[in-house]
């Protein structure tokens, strides 16, 4: 079979099982678009902005575990994609991003729509390639998918000069079924000696704590994590990226940790004597001041990326390997050994934790005549039976979604944690809904964030994605305003937008349903009504309490035991 470069590219994507290609055309990729036109296996989703394409592919990847695939043109197409690539990079999400490039003979000549896409994306990809011949296309695509989805996943960019996709140059096509890369061999199996040490430390603990993160989701290791946690009977906390990897409604789960984590999770971190860190990277939002981090704990850390280990916090028992494989080995050792945790010590540890929980750090005023954002998320959880895919943007609404929607399953909570990219939520929800057309998909957002990728409402109409947009409209960049309230004596410098659009009309102009909700008692009925519209995108504009803050909070320079709690309130 003789194929052109463009046909080889499309054929290679098929061999990788690609269902959706999120893209936007332009001069440098027209040969590729022509090849796409002539086939029906891959569904092209025409976004309205290349940032939307990357976020949509990213949402698809987070929900399915499969790499998301993007096609953009050279120059501005590539630069528009950068924010989405960086977003995926910081959260270790597998993407394959194909960028068009000017013909090889023009590279370096400041040609029309030329940018050095490989150079620009280098610091925010796992790896990137410049395809420099027709023959190189198939093996590079094979490598791109392999690198993106193995080890610690991440985005891979493939830059493709236009001339190698031209229809007049055809070569025999053969897709490699196996690829060897001598320079890239992630270690997946944990060292048995380290695993034994970890088990000894774990069962010998008196005040143990399990701290797990996005790596558990990426590794599909929720079952193993749940089994170990239940076998040991230990408390567990999740990072923002790890929510759902352990059931959020389980009594052993004591909430998220970190800056806006629960009081009990952070106190338990501070007091624990053995910390079992699984697929988490000791991010600064999680550790607080590292000098004050887990002062009494011996730390075990499982991570597939050796560079994550002892990067921010020195650990005692490092285990390099895939979470699923390592947890499996740990379970085997646990089953074979007759060592069991000291139940007396564990009981008093749980008593201590229950006392911290009694503080009810997430309580809020349920009697207010204003809509409390927390109430909206609790109602969302109720109305969707706790089983929706929830994407979010960045800000206070993101934290409330994380705190109040109790995720019981992995891959249900989809947000930009590492880069914190406003504009992520709506396109990500689109990617999720395309992957699961019958699922309930909600995008929790704020009136500032949603405007950053609002154009994708148009894409949602074209491809019938009946997302429910939950806009927690506080007429402020709430997260910024909160920091200004705490740290700048309430000088609200440019955290307020003076001309907020009429979201109902805006949504309607895009062909969707808009709803305005202004009273607390209308929250739940409105949500029910919206979710009953199974084939329509509904934009729900909730006018919320303008100055509500996210509590509790670890402020800059503080430790886990120095949280700022909500000011005392009259609780109903």
């Amino acid at each position, binding site marked *: 079979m003789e194929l052109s470069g463009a046909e080889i590219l499309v054929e290679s994507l098929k061999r990788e099982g690609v269902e959706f290609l999120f893209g936007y055309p332009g001069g440098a990729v027209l040969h590729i678009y022509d090849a796409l036109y002539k086939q029906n296996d891959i569904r092209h989703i025409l976004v309205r902005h290349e940032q939307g394409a990357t976020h949509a592919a990213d949402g698809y990847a987070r929900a399915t575990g499969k790499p998301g695939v993007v096609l953009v043109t050279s120059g501005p197409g590539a630069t528009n994609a950068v924010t989405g690539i960086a977003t995926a990079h910081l959260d270790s999400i597998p993407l394959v991003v194909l960028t068009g490039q000017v013909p090889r003979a023009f590279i370096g000549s400041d040609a029309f729509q030329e940018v050095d896409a*490989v*150079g620009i994306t*280098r*610091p925010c990809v*796992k*790896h*990137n390639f*410049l395809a420099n011949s027709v023959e190189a296309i198939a093996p590079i695509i094979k490598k791109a998918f392999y*690198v993106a989805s193995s080890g610690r996943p991440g985005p891979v960019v493939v830059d493709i000069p236009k001339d190698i996709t031209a229809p007049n140059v055809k070569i025999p096509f053969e897709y490699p079924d196996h690829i060897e*890369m*001598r*320079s*890239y061999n992630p270690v997946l199996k944990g060292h048995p000696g380290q695993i034994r040490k970890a088990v000894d430390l774990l069962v010998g603990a008196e005040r143990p704590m399990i701290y797990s993160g996005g790596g558990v989701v990426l590794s599909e290791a929720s079952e193993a994590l749940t089994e170990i946690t239940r076998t040991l009977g230990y408390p567990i906390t999740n990072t923002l990226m790890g929510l759902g990897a352990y059931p959020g409604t389980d009594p052993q789960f004591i909430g998220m940790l970190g800056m806006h984590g629960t009081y009990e999770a952070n106190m338990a971190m501070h007091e624990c004597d053995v910390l079992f860190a699984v697929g988490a990277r000791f991010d600064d939002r999680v550790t607080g001041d590292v000098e004050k981090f887990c002062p009494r704990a011996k730390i075990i850390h499982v991570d597939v*990326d*050796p*560079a994550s280990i*002892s*990067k921010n916090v*020195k650990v005692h028992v490092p285990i390099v390997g895939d979470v699923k494989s390592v947890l499996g080995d740990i379970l085997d050792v646990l089953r074979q050994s007759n060592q069991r945790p000291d139940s007396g010590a564990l009981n008093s540890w749980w008593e201590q934790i229950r006392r911290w929980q009694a503080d009810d750090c997430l309580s809020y005023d349920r009697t207010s005549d204003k809509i409390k954002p927390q109430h909206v998320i609790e109602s969302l959880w109720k109305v969707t039976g706790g089983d929706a895919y929830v994407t979010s943007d960045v800000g206070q609404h993101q934290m409330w979604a994380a705190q109040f929607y109790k995720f019981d399953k992995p891959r249900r909570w989809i947000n930009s944690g590492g880069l914190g990219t406003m504009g992520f939520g709506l396109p990500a929800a689109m990617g999720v809904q395309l992957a699961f057309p019958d699922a309930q998909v909600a995008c929790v957002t704020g009136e500032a964030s949603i405007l950053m990728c609002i154009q994708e409402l148009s894409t949602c109409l074209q491809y019938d994605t009946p997302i429910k947009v939950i806009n927690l409209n506080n007429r402020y960049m709430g997260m910024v305003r909160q920091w200004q309230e705490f740290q700048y004596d309430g000088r609200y410098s440019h955290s307020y937008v003076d001309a907020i659009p009429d979201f109902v009309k805006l949504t309607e102009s895009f062909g969707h349903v808009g709803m305005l909700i202004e009273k607390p008692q209308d929250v739940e009925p409105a949500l029910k009504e919206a979710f009953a519209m199974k084939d329509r995108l509904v934009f729900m504009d909730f006018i919320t309490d303008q100055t509500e803050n996210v509590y509790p909070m670890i402020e800059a320079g503080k430790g886990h035991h120095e949280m700022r709690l909500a000011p005392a309130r009259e609780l109903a």
Partner: protein
Amino acid sequence: MRHIISILVENESGALSRIAGLFSARGYNIESLTVAPTDDTSLSRMTIVTTGTEEIIEQITKQLNKLVDVVRLVELTESLHIEREMMLTKVTALGGMRDEIKRLTDIFRGRIIDVSDTSYVIELTGDSDKLDAFIKAVGGKSIIEVVRSGVTGIARGEKALKV
């Protein structure tokens, strides 16, 4: 502390900028960096001299290993090794100074490889301290130009950095 890291990388166009970019993006020091293809032309060998605490050097080696183009690396300064740097020095050589500089070059086991009426070019190889010492001995006033290759190195004994 000063460390020498030797790296085998795929001999591909982007590899050098990936490595240089890693150092600048993460704020690591580079004192010198040398690179050239090896006997296996699909591989380049790079030698980087850097400074930092143990923790930083550990992160540097982990981050380098993580780059997809990096095949293997070794920290030479962890064990017995030989390091060499080559230096070309152009010096003013007039009257009595001509003999004086010739003598100094011999003491340092260098070679004069170019001669004009008023100058010499001296080739000298050694570890960095030796080259520093030579510059000091010649004296700043006589020196017209100095070119140093940057450090390369190899482990002593049978140990080798190979694929």
